C-alpha cells in the first residue's frame, strides 16, 4: 500500500489555477437519481444523539400509500420528507471511546480469563485473520448474521457486544460508535432493533464502515420492510430473526464483497452502461411508449452487469443511488431470475422503508443479459407487466438495441468507453474515477469486471483473509482501495479538502472535488503538479466529449 507522506499533501480551498472550472461533464438539469450525498447523511447519522435516533425511526411517512391514494384520488400535492441534521461534535465522543479501545479484543488474546469453549471458537481458522468481520445482532443480543463462521457459536460474542452497547447507552446516555486498536477498528451502528458491528483491519475510514453497516441494515429492510422489522421485535424482543432472513444472508455476503470492490459505493453513485446516445434513447422510448398507460407502475429499470441502462419513473419520484445498489445486488445474487419471469416483493429503503413494491423481474432475452425490473404498487399487476416486458423486448430487438447492449457488456474494443485510457491518450494516467455530483453517476477508466468478483452462487464463508503479499501489477480494485483515504479526506466533515495532490515514488494521486464533480486520478510516480493538472484538464474535456455515451443525461418519466 502506498505510504502517505503528509508533507506532500497540499490541500487548497481556493481552487486557484484549477483548469476547466466551468466543465461539469455529465451534468444535466434534471436527474433520475436523487443526488443527495450519502456522506452528509451518514455524518448526520454519526452525530445524532440518542434521543434523535429514537425519534427518527418512528417518524416515517409512506411513499407507497401516497402513490396508491394518488392513483385513486387524482393529483394532489405532497410534502417532502426532510432529513435531520445535527451539528453535534463527533470528535469528542470518539475520544471517549478510544479509551475503551484497549479493553476490547475480538479474539480475547490477552487470555487472562479462563479459556472456555466459546473462546476457542473465536480462535478457529474460520474467524481468525479476516480482513473484515461483520456481525448483526438483535438489541437483546441474539446473533442474526455473521459474515464468517457460524452464528450459533457466536452467541457469547454477541452477548459481549450487546453489553458494551447498552452500558454506554444506559450509564453514559451516549452512543457507542467505535473502538480503535492499533491494527483494528470496531465500528458500531445501532439502528432500530438491530445492532450492527464491523471489525476491520482494512484502510477504510470509520465513516466508510458506518456507510457499509447502513447498507447492510438497508439490505435487511429491503427484504423485510422497516415496519415488519420493528413490529417483530416489539412483539417479541427475543425473536430469532435468522428464521426470517434465511436465504437472505447471501445478499448481505454479496453486498460486502461489492462494497469493498466497487467504487460506486465509495462515492454513492451509480455506474451507467456506456451506450450510443441514440441506442439509449431508443431503449427509453421503447419503455415509455409501452408503459405509459400502466397507471401503477412506479419505476422501470433496465440494468446489466451492475450498470444502469435506463430508468423511467413516475413523475415526482426519483431513486436514491443506494436503492439502485440494492437492486443491483439482488439481481446479481439471484440466479433464479434467469430461469423464469419472477414476481416478488421488494422494499427500497430510501424510497419507502415501510412497505413493499411489487416487482416483475426478468432478463430481456436468452441472448441479452440485461435485466428489466418493473416496480409497481399494485400487487395484481403481474400479467400486464409481463405483457409489457415482452413488448419491450421485441421493440429492443427490432431496433438493434440488444446488439448495442451486448457490445457494451462484452466490452467491444472498438468502443471508446471500453478502454478509455487508450482513447484519451495521456500515457501518464494509470487510472481515474469520476463522479458527476448533480446526477450521482460514476465513470471509471477500468470498470471492475464482475467476473473478478467472487462466485455469487456460494455463501461467502471462505476467503477474505488479510493478505500480506505485495501484488506486482495493480488491478482496478487496488486503485479503488488506494482512493479510499483520499475520499475520506474529501468527505471529512470538519475540514474537507478540495484538492489533494500527493506524489511519491510509487505513484501520484490527484483528488479533486468541485461543486459539480469528484475526480480521482492515479498517475505515474513523481509527477509534477502542473503536469498533472494539465492532464486532468484534457481528461475532463474527453469525459465532456463522451458524456452522452457515458451518462444518462435526461430524466424520463412515463
Amino acid at each position, binding site marked *: 500500500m502506498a505510504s502517505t507522506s503528509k508533507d506532500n499533501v497540499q490541500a487548497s480551498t481556493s481552487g486557484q489555477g484549477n483548469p476547466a472550472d466551468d466543465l461539469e461533464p455529465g451534468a444535466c438539469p434534471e436527474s433520475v437519481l436523487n443526488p443527495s450525498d450519502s456522506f452528509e447523511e451518514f455524518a448526520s447519522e454519526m452525530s445524532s444523539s440518542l434521543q434523535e435516533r429514537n425519534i427518527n425511526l418512528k417518524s416515517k411517512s409512506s411513499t407507497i400509500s401516497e402513490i396508491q391514494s394518488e392513483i385513486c384520488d387524482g393529483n394532489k400535492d405532497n410534502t417532502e420528507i426532510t432529513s435531520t441534521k445535527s451539528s453535534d461534535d463527533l470528535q469528542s465522543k470518539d475520544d471517549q471511546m478510544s479509551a475503551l479501545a484497549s479493553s476490547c479484543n475480538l479474539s480475547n488474546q490477552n487470555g487472562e480469563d479462563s479459556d472456555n469453549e466459546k473462546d476457542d471458537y473465536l480462535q478457529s481458522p474460520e474467524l481468525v485473520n479476516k480482513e473484515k468481520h461483520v456481525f448483526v445482532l438483535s438489541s437483546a443480543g441474539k446473533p442474526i448474521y455473521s459474515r464468517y463462521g457460524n452464528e450459533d457459536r457466536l452467541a457469547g460474542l454477541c452477548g459481549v457486544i450487546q453489553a458494551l452497547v447498552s452500558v454506554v447507552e444506559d450509564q453514559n446516555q451516549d452512543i457507542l460508535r467505535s473502538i480503535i486498536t492499533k491494527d483494528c477498528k470496531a465500528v458500531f451502528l445501532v439502528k432500530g432493533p438491530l445492532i450492527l458491528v464491523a471489525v476491520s483491519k482494512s484502510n477504510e475510514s470509520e465513516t466508510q464502515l458506518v456507510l457499509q453497516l447502513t447498507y447492510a441494515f438497508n439490505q435487511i429492510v429491503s*427484504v*423485510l420492510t422497516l415496519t415488519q422489522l420493528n413490529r417483530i421485535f416489539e412483539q417479541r424482543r427475543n425473536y430469532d430473526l435468522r*428464521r*426470517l*432472513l*434465511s*436465504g*437472505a444472508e447471501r445478499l448481505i455476503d454479496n453486498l460486502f464483497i461489492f462494497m469493498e470492490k466497487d467504487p460506486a459505493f465509495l462515492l454513492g453513485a451509480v455506474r451507467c452502461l456506456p451506450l450510443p446516445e441514440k441506442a439509449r434513447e431508443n431503449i427509453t422510448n421503447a419503455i415509455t411508449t409501452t408503459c405509459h398507460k400502466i397507471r401503477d407502475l412506479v419505476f422501470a429499470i433496465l440494468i446489466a452487469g451492475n450498470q444502469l441502462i435506463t430508468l423511467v419513473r413516475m413523475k415526482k419520484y426519483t431513486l436514491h443511488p443506494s436503492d439502485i445498489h440494492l437492486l443491483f445486488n*439482488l439481481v446479481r445474487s*439471484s*440466479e*433464479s*431470475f434467469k*430461469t*423464469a*419471469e*419472477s*414476481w*416478488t*416483493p421488494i422494499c427500497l429503503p430510501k424510497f419507502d422503508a415501510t412497505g413493499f413494491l411489487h*416487482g416483475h*423481474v*426478468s432478463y430481456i*432475452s*436468452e441472448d441479452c443479459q440485461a435485466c428489466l425490473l418493473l416496480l409497481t404498487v399494485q*400487487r*395484481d399487476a*403481474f*400479467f*400486464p407487466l*409481463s*405483457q409489457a416486458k*415482452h413488448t419491450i*423486448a421485441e421493440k429492443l430487438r427490432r431496433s438493434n438495441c440488444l446488439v448495442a447492449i451486448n457490445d457494451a457488456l462484452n466490452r467491444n474494443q472498438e468502443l471508446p468507453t471500453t478502454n478509455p485510457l487508450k482513447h484519451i491518450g495521456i500515457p501518464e494516467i494509470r487510472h481515474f474515477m469520476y463522479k458527476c455530483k448533480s446526477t450521482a453517476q460514476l465513470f471509471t477508466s477500468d470498470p471492475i469486471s464482475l467476473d473478478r468478483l467472487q462466485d455469487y*452462487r456460494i455463501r461467502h464463508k471462505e476467503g477474505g483473509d488479510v493478505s500480506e503479499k505485495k501484488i506486482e501489477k495493480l488491478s482496478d480494485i487496488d486503485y479503488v482501495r488506494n482512493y479510499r483515504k483520499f475520499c475520506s479526506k474529501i468527505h471529512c466533515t470538519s475540514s474537507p479538502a478540495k484538492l489533494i495532490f500527493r506524489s511519491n515514488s510509487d505513484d501520484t494521486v490527484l483528488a479533486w472535488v468541485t461543486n459539480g464533480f469528484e475526480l480521482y486520478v492515479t498517475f505515474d510516480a513523481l509527477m509534477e503538479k502542473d503536469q498533472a493538472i494539465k492532464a486532468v484538464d484534457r481528461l475532463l474535456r474527453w469525459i465532456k466529449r463522451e458524456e452522452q455515451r457515458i451518462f444518462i443525461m435526461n430524466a424520463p418519466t412515463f
Partner: protein
Amino acid sequence: MKVIEAKIVVLGSQGVGKTSLVVRYIGKMFSKHISPTIGASFFTCNISVGDARVKLQVWDTAGQERFRSMAPMYYRNANAALLVFDITSVSSFNAIKGWVKELQSNVSEEMVVSLVGNKCDLQESRAVTYAEASSYAASIGAKYCETSALHDQNIEQVFLSTATALLALSATNQTMRSYDSADDERQNGSPTEEQATGKVELPAWNTDNIAHGELQRNMCC
C-alpha cells in the same frame, strides 16, 4: 379441440425441490445450480390429455420464510396445488399440514391438490415413510406421488394426473376458462389475437409471448 386454462401453484418449504421439479418438467433438464426462488417464478406449459388440451400457468413459489406472507397472492384463484416436501426432511412434511390448513380456510373454490414427496432418489436418508405420506394425502383428498427431479422419476405423471383432474373439474368449475378451439392453430400463428380478445381474469396472459418454459406435451410416459 377442447382447451382449458388453469392456474397451478407449487408450495412447500425451502429447498425441497419445487423449482427443480418444474424445470425438469417444463425445461426437460436438471441443474444442480438452481438457486433459491425469489418471490415466485412464472411458467406456462400445455399438456395434452386425450384430445383435449390443458394450458397451465405454473406459479413456482419461494419456500423462504420471508415470502410466507406473500403466498395468498400466488394461490389466490389457483385451480390446483402441488404441495411438495422432501422425503428426507420431517419438518418439510410437517410444513405441508400448515399449507393444507391455509388453503382450506382461504380458498373457497374446489381445487385439485396433489402431495408430492420429492428426492425419492435419496432412499437411504428417507425420513418420511411412504405409508405415512400417502395416508395423510388420502385424508385430505389428495393424490400422493413420490418423485425425483434428479432422476426424472414420476414427474410427468404428477403433471399429467393434475391436468386430467383439472379437465374433469372444468366441467363444473366456473373460474377456469374453457373453450372449444377449432381455430387454435391460427392463434398460435398470430400471437396478438388472443390478447385482443381479452380475458376476464388474465388480461394479458398469452402463452405465445412467454419466453421460457413453453413446451408442447404429449401423453406419453
